[in-house]
Protein backbone atom coordinates (compact mmCIF):
# COMPACT_ATOMS: atom_id res chain seq x y z
CA UNK A 1 0.00 0.00 0.00
CA UNK A 2 1.51 3.28 -1.10
CA UNK A 3 -1.33 5.40 0.27
CA UNK A 4 -2.76 4.94 3.74
CA UNK A 5 -4.97 6.68 6.27
CA UNK A 6 -4.07 6.85 9.95
CA UNK A 7 -6.31 7.74 12.86
CA UNK A 8 -3.31 7.94 15.21
CA UNK A 9 -0.24 10.25 15.06
CA UNK A 10 1.79 9.35 12.01
CA UNK A 11 4.93 7.34 12.67
CA UNK A 12 6.30 6.91 9.16
CA UNK A 13 9.30 4.77 8.55
CA UNK A 14 11.54 6.36 5.97
CA UNK A 15 11.41 4.60 2.66
CA UNK A 16 14.65 3.17 1.33
CA UNK A 17 15.63 2.14 -2.17
CA UNK A 18 19.07 1.17 -3.42
CA UNK A 19 18.56 2.79 -6.84
CA UNK A 20 17.55 6.13 -5.34
CA UNK A 21 19.97 8.90 -4.58
CA UNK A 22 17.38 11.53 -3.64
CA UNK A 23 14.84 11.17 -0.84
CA UNK A 24 12.32 13.90 -0.01
CA UNK A 25 10.05 13.87 3.00
CA UNK A 26 7.29 16.48 3.29
CA UNK A 27 5.24 16.91 6.45
CA UNK A 28 2.05 18.98 6.34
CA UNK A 29 1.15 20.32 9.80
CA UNK A 30 -1.88 21.98 11.35
CA UNK A 31 -1.30 25.72 11.55
CA UNK A 32 -3.07 28.22 13.78
CA UNK A 33 -4.73 30.34 11.10
CA UNK A 34 -6.74 29.98 7.89
CA UNK A 35 -7.89 32.81 5.63
CA UNK A 36 -7.48 35.38 8.40
CA UNK A 37 -9.23 33.31 11.06
CA UNK A 38 -7.60 31.87 14.11
CA UNK A 39 -7.74 28.08 14.09
CA UNK A 40 -7.58 26.02 17.28
CA UNK A 41 -7.91 22.54 15.83
CA UNK A 42 -9.29 20.49 13.02
CA UNK A 43 -10.75 17.20 12.05
CA UNK A 44 -10.21 15.17 8.91
CA UNK A 45 -12.82 12.78 7.67
CA UNK A 46 -12.60 10.51 4.63
CA UNK A 47 -14.69 8.08 2.64
CA UNK A 48 -12.11 5.38 3.37
CA UNK A 49 -12.75 3.07 0.40
CA UNK A 50 -12.66 5.91 -2.09
CA UNK A 51 -9.84 7.81 -0.46
CA UNK A 52 -7.67 4.68 -0.43
CA UNK A 53 -8.30 3.72 -4.04
CA UNK A 54 -7.93 7.26 -5.36
CA UNK A 55 -4.89 7.91 -3.17
CA UNK A 56 -3.26 4.71 -4.36
CA UNK A 57 -3.91 5.65 -7.99
CA UNK A 58 -2.47 9.11 -7.40
CA UNK A 59 0.79 7.82 -5.90
CA UNK A 60 1.13 5.27 -8.69
CA UNK A 61 0.62 8.04 -11.24
CA UNK A 62 3.35 10.13 -9.58
CA UNK A 63 5.77 7.19 -9.74
CA UNK A 64 5.16 6.79 -13.46
CA UNK A 65 5.08 10.48 -14.25
CA UNK A 66 8.34 11.37 -12.48
CA UNK A 67 10.14 8.04 -12.84
CA UNK A 68 10.33 7.59 -9.07
CA UNK A 69 11.92 4.60 -7.43
CA UNK A 70 9.39 4.68 -4.61
CA UNK A 71 6.73 6.91 -3.08
CA UNK A 72 4.42 6.75 -0.09
CA UNK A 73 1.72 8.96 1.43
CA UNK A 74 0.12 8.73 4.87
CA UNK A 75 -2.82 11.04 5.67
CA UNK A 76 -4.29 11.59 9.11
CA UNK A 77 -8.01 11.32 9.86
CA UNK A 78 -9.74 12.27 13.12
CA UNK A 79 -9.10 15.11 15.58
CA UNK A 80 -5.86 17.09 15.28
CA UNK A 81 -4.49 20.06 17.22
CA UNK A 82 -2.04 22.80 16.24
CA UNK A 83 1.35 21.38 15.30
CA UNK A 84 0.09 17.85 14.61
CA UNK A 85 1.24 16.24 11.39
CA UNK A 86 -1.67 15.98 8.96
CA UNK A 87 0.09 14.33 6.04
CA UNK A 88 3.46 12.81 5.21
CA UNK A 89 4.63 12.46 1.60
CA UNK A 90 7.84 10.56 0.86
CA UNK A 91 9.41 10.32 -2.57
CA UNK A 92 12.58 8.63 -3.74
CA UNK A 93 14.22 8.95 -7.16
CA UNK A 94 17.62 8.35 -8.75
CA UNK A 95 18.26 12.13 -8.72
CA UNK A 96 16.94 14.73 -6.27
CA UNK A 97 15.07 16.94 -8.73
CA UNK A 98 12.31 14.43 -9.57
CA UNK A 99 11.84 13.61 -5.88
CA UNK A 100 11.28 17.31 -5.05
CA UNK A 101 8.95 17.87 -7.99
CA UNK A 102 6.93 14.73 -7.40
CA UNK A 103 6.50 15.57 -3.72
CA UNK A 104 5.01 18.98 -4.53
CA UNK A 105 2.87 17.54 -7.34
CA UNK A 106 1.43 14.88 -5.04
CA UNK A 107 0.47 17.53 -2.45
CA UNK A 108 -1.23 19.68 -5.12
CA UNK A 109 -3.14 16.75 -6.56
CA UNK A 110 -4.06 15.25 -3.19
CA UNK A 111 -6.20 18.26 -2.30
CA UNK A 112 -8.67 17.84 -5.09
CA UNK A 113 -8.43 14.21 -6.07
CA UNK A 114 -8.71 12.38 -2.79
CA UNK A 115 -11.98 12.79 -0.87
CA UNK A 116 -10.81 13.89 2.55
CA UNK A 117 -12.72 16.65 4.31
CA UNK A 118 -11.26 19.12 6.74
CA UNK A 119 -13.36 20.62 9.51
CA UNK A 120 -11.66 23.62 11.08
CA UNK A 121 -12.51 24.80 14.58
CA UNK A 122 -11.92 28.51 14.99
CA UNK A 123 -11.07 30.39 18.19
CA UNK A 124 -14.63 31.78 18.10
CA UNK A 125 -15.84 28.24 18.82
CA UNK A 126 -17.38 27.92 15.36
CA UNK A 127 -16.45 24.84 13.32
CA UNK A 128 -16.86 24.53 9.55
CA UNK A 129 -16.17 21.91 6.92
CA UNK A 130 -13.61 23.28 4.52
CA UNK A 131 -13.19 21.94 1.04
CA UNK A 132 -9.52 22.30 0.14
CA UNK A 133 -8.37 24.24 -2.86
CA UNK A 134 -8.36 27.98 -3.34
CA UNK A 135 -10.21 30.13 -5.84
CA UNK A 136 -7.80 31.19 -8.52
CA UNK A 137 -7.46 34.32 -10.56
CA UNK A 138 -4.94 34.39 -13.35
CA UNK A 139 -4.13 36.76 -16.23
CA UNK A 140 -5.65 34.13 -18.54
CA UNK A 141 -9.01 34.72 -16.84
CA UNK A 142 -9.18 38.39 -17.81
CA UNK A 143 -9.12 37.47 -21.47
CA UNK A 144 -11.33 34.39 -21.10
CA UNK A 145 -14.10 36.35 -19.40
CA UNK A 146 -13.73 39.67 -21.23
CA UNK A 147 -17.06 39.42 -23.08
CA UNK A 148 -18.95 38.50 -19.97
CA UNK A 149 -17.28 41.14 -17.77
CA UNK A 150 -18.40 43.80 -20.24
CA UNK A 151 -21.95 43.27 -18.98
CA UNK A 152 -22.78 45.89 -16.35
CA UNK A 153 -24.41 43.14 -14.27
CA UNK A 154 -21.09 41.26 -14.14
CA UNK A 155 -18.03 43.52 -14.32
CA UNK A 156 -14.86 42.72 -12.33
CA UNK A 157 -16.81 42.39 -9.06
CA UNK A 158 -19.26 39.88 -10.52
CA UNK A 159 -16.43 37.92 -12.09
CA UNK A 160 -14.62 37.85 -8.72
CA UNK A 161 -17.83 36.60 -7.07
CA UNK A 162 -18.01 33.81 -9.66
CA UNK A 163 -14.33 32.95 -9.11
CA UNK A 164 -14.99 32.59 -5.40
CA UNK A 165 -18.07 30.42 -5.86
CA UNK A 166 -18.16 26.71 -5.05
CA UNK A 167 -20.87 24.79 -6.90
CA UNK A 168 -21.83 21.16 -6.30
CA UNK A 169 -23.45 19.13 -9.08
CA UNK A 170 -25.30 16.16 -7.65
CA UNK A 171 -25.90 13.68 -10.46
CA UNK A 172 -23.62 13.95 -13.49
CA UNK A 173 -25.91 12.93 -16.34
CA UNK A 174 -28.22 14.63 -18.81
CA UNK A 175 -28.89 17.80 -16.78
CA UNK A 176 -25.17 18.17 -16.00
CA UNK A 177 -24.45 17.99 -19.75
CA UNK A 178 -26.09 21.42 -19.89
CA UNK A 179 -25.14 22.87 -16.53
CA UNK A 180 -21.49 21.84 -16.31
CA UNK A 181 -20.11 23.55 -19.46
CA UNK A 182 -22.12 26.70 -18.72
CA UNK A 183 -20.99 26.86 -15.10
CA UNK A 184 -17.34 26.17 -15.87
CA UNK A 185 -17.44 28.63 -18.77
CA UNK A 186 -18.84 31.32 -16.48
CA UNK A 187 -15.70 31.14 -14.33
CA UNK A 188 -16.84 29.57 -11.07
CA UNK A 189 -13.86 28.74 -8.84
CA UNK A 190 -14.69 25.28 -7.58
CA UNK A 191 -16.86 22.52 -8.99
CA UNK A 192 -17.83 19.41 -7.03
CA UNK A 193 -19.20 16.36 -8.87
CA UNK A 194 -21.21 13.61 -7.15
CA UNK A 195 -22.24 10.46 -9.01
CA UNK A 196 -21.48 6.79 -8.44
CA UNK A 197 -22.44 5.64 -11.94
CA UNK A 198 -20.36 4.53 -14.87
CA UNK A 199 -20.99 5.87 -18.36
CA UNK A 200 -23.37 3.63 -20.34
CA UNK A 201 -23.97 3.55 -24.06
CA UNK A 202 -27.65 4.47 -23.52
CA UNK A 203 -26.55 7.70 -21.77
CA UNK A 204 -24.68 9.21 -24.71
CA UNK A 205 -27.64 10.63 -26.68
CA UNK A 206 -28.25 13.17 -23.90
CA UNK A 207 -25.18 13.09 -21.65
CA UNK A 208 -22.94 14.89 -24.12
CA UNK A 209 -20.11 15.42 -21.63
CA UNK A 210 -19.08 11.88 -22.48
CA UNK A 211 -17.53 10.28 -25.54
CA UNK A 212 -18.16 6.76 -26.83
CA UNK A 213 -14.72 5.78 -25.49
CA UNK A 214 -15.88 6.76 -21.96
CA UNK A 215 -18.38 3.88 -21.72
CA UNK A 216 -17.63 1.82 -18.62
CA UNK A 217 -15.71 4.60 -16.88
CA UNK A 218 -16.72 6.71 -13.87
CA UNK A 219 -18.92 9.65 -14.86
CA UNK A 220 -17.37 12.01 -12.31
CA UNK A 221 -13.86 11.31 -13.60
CA UNK A 222 -14.75 11.84 -17.26
CA UNK A 223 -16.77 14.96 -16.45
CA UNK A 224 -13.78 16.30 -14.47
CA UNK A 225 -11.58 15.79 -17.52
CA UNK A 226 -14.13 17.68 -19.65
CA UNK A 227 -14.24 20.56 -17.14
CA UNK A 228 -10.46 20.87 -16.85
CA UNK A 229 -10.07 20.91 -20.62
CA UNK A 230 -12.44 23.84 -20.75
CA UNK A 231 -10.71 25.69 -17.94
CA UNK A 232 -7.48 24.24 -16.50
CA UNK A 233 -7.49 26.72 -13.58
CA UNK A 234 -10.75 25.29 -12.24
CA UNK A 235 -10.65 23.31 -9.01
CA UNK A 236 -12.63 20.10 -9.51
CA UNK A 237 -13.52 17.70 -6.72
CA UNK A 238 -14.95 14.31 -7.60
CA UNK A 239 -17.06 12.11 -5.32
CA UNK A 240 -17.89 8.77 -6.97
CA UNK A 241 -20.65 8.02 -4.44
CA UNK A 242 -24.42 8.06 -4.34
CA UNK A 243 -25.79 10.95 -2.31
CA UNK A 244 -27.50 9.47 0.76
CA UNK A 245 -28.52 10.34 4.29
CA UNK A 246 -25.10 9.44 5.63
CA UNK A 247 -23.00 11.71 3.37
CA UNK A 248 -25.39 14.42 2.17
CA UNK A 249 -24.57 16.98 4.87
CA UNK A 250 -20.83 16.64 4.40
CA UNK A 251 -21.07 16.93 0.63
CA UNK A 252 -23.45 19.89 0.65
CA UNK A 253 -21.74 21.85 3.43
CA UNK A 254 -18.57 22.44 1.41
CA UNK A 255 -20.37 24.37 -1.34
CA UNK A 256 -22.29 27.63 -1.84
CA UNK A 257 -24.78 26.51 -4.52
CA UNK A 258 -26.17 23.06 -5.10
CA UNK A 259 -27.43 21.88 -8.51
CA UNK A 260 -29.69 18.86 -8.58
CA UNK A 261 -29.07 16.69 -11.63
CA UNK A 262 -30.34 13.45 -10.14
CA UNK A 263 -33.07 11.26 -11.53
CA UNK A 264 -34.64 10.13 -8.27
CA UNK A 265 -37.37 11.88 -6.32
CA UNK A 266 -36.12 10.47 -3.05
CA UNK A 267 -32.69 11.98 -3.69
CA UNK A 268 -34.27 15.28 -4.73
CA UNK A 269 -36.28 15.41 -1.51
CA UNK A 270 -33.19 14.52 0.54
CA UNK A 271 -31.20 17.31 -1.13
CA UNK A 272 -34.11 19.69 -0.60
CA UNK A 273 -34.17 18.87 3.13
CA UNK A 274 -30.40 19.04 3.65
CA UNK A 275 -30.09 22.33 1.72
CA UNK A 276 -32.84 23.83 3.88
CA UNK A 277 -31.12 22.61 7.06
CA UNK A 278 -27.68 23.91 6.06
CA UNK A 279 -28.94 27.11 4.44
CA UNK A 280 -27.73 26.39 0.90
CA UNK A 281 -29.65 27.47 -2.21
CA UNK A 282 -30.65 24.59 -4.49
CA UNK A 283 -31.56 24.62 -8.17
CA UNK A 284 -33.56 21.53 -9.00
CA UNK A 285 -34.78 20.30 -12.39
CA UNK A 286 -36.42 17.18 -13.77
CA UNK A 287 -37.29 15.94 -17.22
CA UNK A 288 -39.92 13.69 -18.74
CA UNK A 289 -40.14 12.87 -22.46
CA UNK A 290 -40.56 16.35 -24.06
CA UNK A 291 -40.94 18.31 -20.83
CA UNK A 292 -38.82 19.94 -18.17
CA UNK A 293 -39.53 21.36 -14.71
CA UNK A 294 -37.24 23.74 -12.85
CA UNK A 295 -37.19 25.74 -9.66
CA UNK A 296 -34.72 27.49 -7.41
CA UNK A 297 -35.10 26.93 -3.69
CA UNK A 298 -33.78 29.50 -1.24
CA UNK A 299 -33.24 28.60 2.41
CA UNK A 300 -36.48 29.42 4.21
CA UNK A 301 -38.37 29.87 0.93
CA UNK A 302 -40.88 27.54 -0.71
CA UNK A 303 -39.18 24.20 -1.19
CA UNK A 304 -39.74 20.94 -3.04
CA UNK A 305 -41.38 19.33 0.01
CA UNK A 306 -43.96 22.14 0.01
CA UNK A 307 -44.97 21.00 -3.46
CA UNK A 308 -44.63 17.23 -3.07
CA UNK A 309 -44.35 16.36 0.62
CA UNK A 310 -44.70 12.64 0.07
CA UNK A 311 -42.05 10.80 -1.95
CA UNK A 312 -44.07 8.76 -4.46
CA UNK A 313 -43.14 5.23 -5.47
CA UNK A 314 -40.53 5.79 -8.21
CA UNK A 315 -42.35 3.70 -10.81
CA UNK A 316 -45.42 5.96 -10.51
CA UNK A 317 -43.82 9.00 -12.08
CA UNK A 318 -41.67 7.52 -14.82
CA UNK A 319 -37.89 7.75 -15.29
CA UNK A 320 -35.87 8.40 -18.44
CA UNK A 321 -35.41 4.65 -18.77
CA UNK A 322 -39.14 3.91 -18.48
CA UNK A 323 -40.75 6.82 -20.31
CA UNK A 324 -37.97 7.93 -22.63
CA UNK A 325 -36.59 11.42 -23.07
CA UNK A 326 -35.42 13.55 -25.97
CA UNK A 327 -31.70 14.29 -25.62
CA UNK A 328 -31.97 18.07 -25.78
CA UNK A 329 -34.53 18.25 -22.95
CA UNK A 330 -32.15 17.64 -20.01
CA UNK A 331 -29.36 19.57 -21.75
CA UNK A 332 -31.43 22.73 -22.05
CA UNK A 333 -32.93 22.38 -18.56
CA UNK A 334 -29.34 22.04 -17.29
CA UNK A 335 -28.33 25.25 -19.07
CA UNK A 336 -31.28 26.95 -17.36
CA UNK A 337 -30.06 25.59 -14.01
CA UNK A 338 -26.63 27.10 -14.64
CA UNK A 339 -28.37 30.37 -15.52
CA UNK A 340 -30.08 30.34 -12.11
CA UNK A 341 -26.81 29.67 -10.25
CA UNK A 342 -24.90 32.34 -12.17
CA UNK A 343 -27.65 34.91 -11.59
CA UNK A 344 -27.79 33.94 -7.93
CA UNK A 345 -24.05 34.44 -7.50
CA UNK A 346 -24.31 37.81 -9.25
CA UNK A 347 -27.21 38.85 -7.02
CA UNK A 348 -29.77 38.94 -9.85
CA UNK A 349 -33.36 37.66 -9.45
CA UNK A 350 -33.86 33.89 -9.64
CA UNK A 351 -36.91 31.64 -9.94
CA UNK A 352 -37.25 31.17 -6.18
CA UNK A 353 -41.03 31.63 -5.93
CA UNK A 354 -42.21 29.87 -9.07
CA UNK A 355 -42.15 26.51 -10.77
CA UNK A 356 -41.21 26.56 -14.45
CA UNK A 357 -42.79 24.01 -16.78
CA UNK A 358 -41.25 23.92 -20.23
CA UNK A 359 -42.85 22.05 -23.11
CA UNK A 360 -40.31 21.23 -25.82
CA UNK A 361 -43.03 20.35 -28.34
CA UNK A 362 -44.60 23.80 -28.36
CA UNK A 363 -41.72 25.76 -26.72
CA UNK A 364 -44.33 27.00 -24.30
CA UNK A 365 -43.16 28.02 -20.84
CA UNK A 366 -45.64 28.03 -17.96
CA UNK A 367 -44.76 29.41 -14.53
CA UNK A 368 -46.76 28.74 -11.40
CA UNK A 369 -46.32 30.65 -8.18
CA UNK A 370 -45.17 28.51 -5.27
CA UNK A 371 -45.94 29.07 -1.62
CA UNK A 372 -44.11 27.87 1.45
CA UNK A 373 -45.95 25.66 3.93
CA UNK A 374 -46.07 28.63 6.30
CA UNK A 375 -47.89 30.68 3.68
CA UNK A 376 -50.11 27.75 2.74
CA UNK A 377 -51.36 27.28 6.25
CA UNK A 378 -51.24 30.80 7.64
CA UNK A 379 -54.65 30.67 9.23
CA UNK A 380 -56.31 30.24 5.85
CA UNK A 381 -58.06 27.06 6.97
CA UNK A 382 -59.82 26.39 10.21
CA UNK A 383 -58.72 22.76 10.07
CA UNK A 384 -54.99 23.52 10.08
CA UNK A 385 -54.52 23.93 13.80
CA UNK A 386 -51.91 25.21 16.21
CA UNK A 387 -51.17 22.92 19.21
CA UNK A 388 -51.46 25.83 21.65
CA UNK A 389 -54.93 26.89 20.53
CA UNK A 390 -56.78 23.59 20.91
CA UNK A 391 -57.55 21.02 23.57
CA UNK A 392 -55.52 18.00 22.44
CA UNK A 393 -57.53 15.66 24.68
CA UNK A 394 -60.60 16.11 22.52
CA UNK A 395 -58.92 14.63 19.42
CA UNK A 396 -57.85 11.20 18.40
CA UNK A 397 -54.18 11.68 17.57
CA UNK A 398 -52.92 9.90 14.43
CA UNK A 399 -49.25 9.76 13.48
CA UNK A 400 -49.11 9.47 9.67
CA UNK A 401 -45.32 9.26 9.38
CA UNK A 402 -43.64 6.16 7.96
CA UNK A 403 -42.70 3.44 10.50
CA UNK A 404 -38.99 4.37 10.45
CA UNK A 405 -39.51 8.03 11.31
CA UNK A 406 -38.62 9.27 14.79
CA UNK A 407 -39.08 10.52 17.45
CA UNK A 408 -41.98 8.48 18.82
CA UNK A 409 -44.89 10.50 20.15
CA UNK A 410 -45.19 10.48 23.93
CA UNK A 411 -48.97 11.10 23.97
CA UNK A 412 -51.42 8.27 23.29
CA UNK A 413 -51.86 7.93 19.55
CA UNK A 414 -52.54 5.64 16.60
CA UNK A 415 -50.04 5.05 13.82
CA UNK A 416 -51.48 4.95 10.29
CA UNK A 417 -49.11 5.70 7.38
CA UNK A 418 -50.40 8.52 5.16
CA UNK A 419 -51.18 6.31 2.16
CA UNK A 420 -53.54 4.15 4.27
CA UNK A 421 -55.39 7.12 5.78
CA UNK A 422 -57.51 7.51 2.65
CA UNK A 423 -59.17 4.14 3.25
CA UNK A 424 -60.09 4.60 6.92
CA UNK A 425 -63.48 5.88 8.10
CA UNK A 426 -62.62 8.51 10.69
CA UNK A 427 -65.24 8.42 13.46
CA UNK A 428 -64.11 10.89 16.13
CA UNK A 429 -62.49 14.31 15.64
CA UNK A 430 -59.06 13.32 14.36
CA UNK A 431 -55.80 15.27 14.46
CA UNK A 432 -53.15 14.12 11.98
CA UNK A 433 -49.47 14.63 12.80
CA UNK A 434 -46.43 14.29 10.55
CA UNK A 435 -42.82 15.54 10.73
CA UNK A 436 -43.38 19.11 9.53
CA UNK A 437 -47.13 19.61 9.10
CA UNK A 438 -46.90 19.39 5.29
CA UNK A 439 -48.08 15.85 4.75
CA UNK A 440 -50.86 16.17 7.31
CA UNK A 441 -51.97 19.40 5.61
CA UNK A 442 -52.20 17.69 2.24
CA UNK A 443 -53.96 14.67 3.69
CA UNK A 444 -56.62 16.76 5.42
CA UNK A 445 -57.05 18.94 2.33
CA UNK A 446 -57.62 15.79 0.29
CA UNK A 447 -59.97 14.18 2.80
CA UNK A 448 -62.03 17.34 3.14
CA UNK A 449 -62.23 17.61 -0.63
CA UNK A 450 -63.88 14.17 -0.51
CA UNK A 451 -66.40 15.41 1.99
CA UNK A 452 -64.78 13.93 5.12
CA UNK A 453 -65.38 16.18 8.13
CA UNK A 454 -63.89 16.26 11.62
CA UNK A 455 -60.32 15.84 10.35
CA UNK A 456 -57.56 18.29 11.29
CA UNK A 457 -53.86 18.84 10.60
CA UNK A 458 -51.32 19.87 13.22
CA UNK A 459 -49.22 22.86 12.12
CA UNK A 460 -45.48 22.38 12.44
CA UNK A 461 -45.66 18.63 12.99
CA UNK A 462 -44.30 16.48 15.79
CA UNK A 463 -42.03 19.11 17.32
CA UNK A 464 -44.89 21.48 18.05
CA UNK A 465 -46.80 18.70 19.76
CA UNK A 466 -43.96 17.59 22.01
CA UNK A 467 -43.05 21.15 22.96
CA UNK A 468 -46.16 21.61 25.12
Amino acid at each position, binding site marked *: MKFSLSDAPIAAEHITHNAAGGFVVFEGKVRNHAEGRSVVGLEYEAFPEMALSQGEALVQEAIERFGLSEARVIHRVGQLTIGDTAVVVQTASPHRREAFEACEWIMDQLKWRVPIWKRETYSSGVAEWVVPGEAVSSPVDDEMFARQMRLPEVGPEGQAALAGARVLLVGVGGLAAGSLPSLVGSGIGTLGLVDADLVELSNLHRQTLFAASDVGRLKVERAAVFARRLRPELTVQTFPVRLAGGNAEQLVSGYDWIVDGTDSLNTKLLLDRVCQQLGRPLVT*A*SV*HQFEGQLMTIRPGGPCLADL*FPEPPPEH*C*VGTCAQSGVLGVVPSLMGVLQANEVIKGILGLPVLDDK*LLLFDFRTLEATTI*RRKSSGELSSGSSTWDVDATSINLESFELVDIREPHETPELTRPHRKVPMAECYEVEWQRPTLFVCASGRRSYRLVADLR*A*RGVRGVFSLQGGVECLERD
Partner: protein
Amino acid sequence: MKTVTIRYFAVLRERRGLAVEQKTTSCESVGDFVETLIAEHRLGLPPALIRVAIEGEFVDPADPLQEGSELVLIPPVAGG
Protein backbone atom coordinates in the same frame (compact mmCIF):
# COMPACT_ATOMS: atom_id res chain seq x y z
CA MET B 1 -72.82 21.40 -14.81
CA LYS B 2 -69.70 23.32 -15.70
CA THR B 3 -67.14 23.06 -18.47
CA VAL B 4 -63.42 23.28 -17.69
CA THR B 5 -60.16 22.82 -19.59
CA ILE B 6 -57.50 20.39 -18.33
CA ARG B 7 -53.82 20.54 -19.25
CA TYR B 8 -51.81 17.43 -18.42
CA PHE B 9 -48.09 17.40 -17.73
CA ALA B 10 -45.38 14.72 -17.65
CA VAL B 11 -46.53 11.23 -16.65
CA LEU B 12 -50.18 12.37 -16.56
CA ARG B 13 -49.98 13.47 -20.17
CA GLU B 14 -48.28 10.21 -21.06
CA ARG B 15 -51.01 8.13 -19.37
CA ARG B 16 -53.88 10.29 -20.66
CA GLY B 17 -52.45 10.25 -24.17
CA LEU B 18 -53.16 13.92 -24.84
CA ALA B 19 -52.07 17.34 -23.59
CA VAL B 20 -55.28 19.35 -23.38
CA GLU B 21 -58.98 18.53 -23.21
CA GLN B 22 -62.29 20.06 -22.20
CA LYS B 23 -64.74 18.32 -19.92
CA THR B 24 -68.18 18.98 -18.54
CA THR B 25 -68.68 17.91 -14.95
CA SER B 26 -70.99 18.20 -11.97
CA CYS B 27 -68.09 18.05 -9.45
CA GLU B 28 -68.19 20.80 -6.84
CA SER B 29 -64.52 20.89 -5.76
CA VAL B 30 -61.19 20.72 -7.58
CA GLY B 31 -60.27 17.63 -5.54
CA ASP B 32 -63.45 15.76 -6.45
CA PHE B 33 -62.90 16.49 -10.10
CA VAL B 34 -59.26 15.32 -10.02
CA GLU B 35 -60.38 12.07 -8.42
CA THR B 36 -62.90 11.44 -11.18
CA LEU B 37 -60.14 12.07 -13.74
CA ILE B 38 -57.82 9.64 -11.96
CA ALA B 39 -60.47 6.93 -11.98
CA GLU B 40 -61.76 7.57 -15.49
CA HIS B 41 -58.37 7.74 -17.21
CA ARG B 42 -56.33 5.48 -14.91
CA LEU B 43 -53.80 8.20 -14.25
CA GLY B 44 -51.98 5.91 -11.79
CA LEU B 45 -51.19 8.48 -9.10
CA PRO B 46 -52.94 9.13 -5.78
CA PRO B 47 -54.61 12.56 -5.49
CA ALA B 48 -52.01 13.71 -2.96
CA LEU B 49 -49.34 13.53 -5.67
CA ILE B 50 -51.15 15.62 -8.25
CA ARG B 51 -50.89 19.37 -7.79
CA VAL B 52 -53.39 21.58 -9.53
CA ALA B 53 -52.80 25.14 -10.67
CA ILE B 54 -55.30 27.66 -12.03
CA GLU B 55 -54.20 30.96 -13.55
CA GLY B 56 -50.60 30.56 -12.42
CA GLU B 57 -51.40 29.71 -8.78
CA PHE B 58 -51.60 26.38 -7.00
CA VAL B 59 -55.07 25.70 -5.66
CA ASP B 60 -56.35 23.57 -2.82
CA PRO B 61 -58.34 20.36 -3.45
CA ALA B 62 -61.16 21.83 -1.38
CA ASP B 63 -61.43 24.93 -3.59
CA PRO B 64 -64.64 25.15 -5.63
CA LEU B 65 -64.48 24.22 -9.29
CA GLN B 66 -65.40 27.24 -11.40
CA GLU B 67 -67.00 27.31 -14.84
CA GLY B 68 -64.45 28.01 -17.58
CA SER B 69 -61.33 27.38 -15.45
CA GLU B 70 -58.17 25.97 -16.97
CA LEU B 71 -56.69 23.37 -14.62
CA VAL B 72 -53.00 22.55 -14.96
CA LEU B 73 -52.30 19.08 -13.53
CA ILE B 74 -48.72 18.64 -12.34
CA PRO B 75 -47.26 15.37 -11.07
CA PRO B 76 -43.79 15.02 -9.55
CA VAL B 77 -41.11 14.47 -12.19
CA ALA B 78 -38.00 12.44 -11.47
CA GLY B 79 -35.94 12.14 -14.66
CA GLY B 80 -32.53 13.75 -15.05
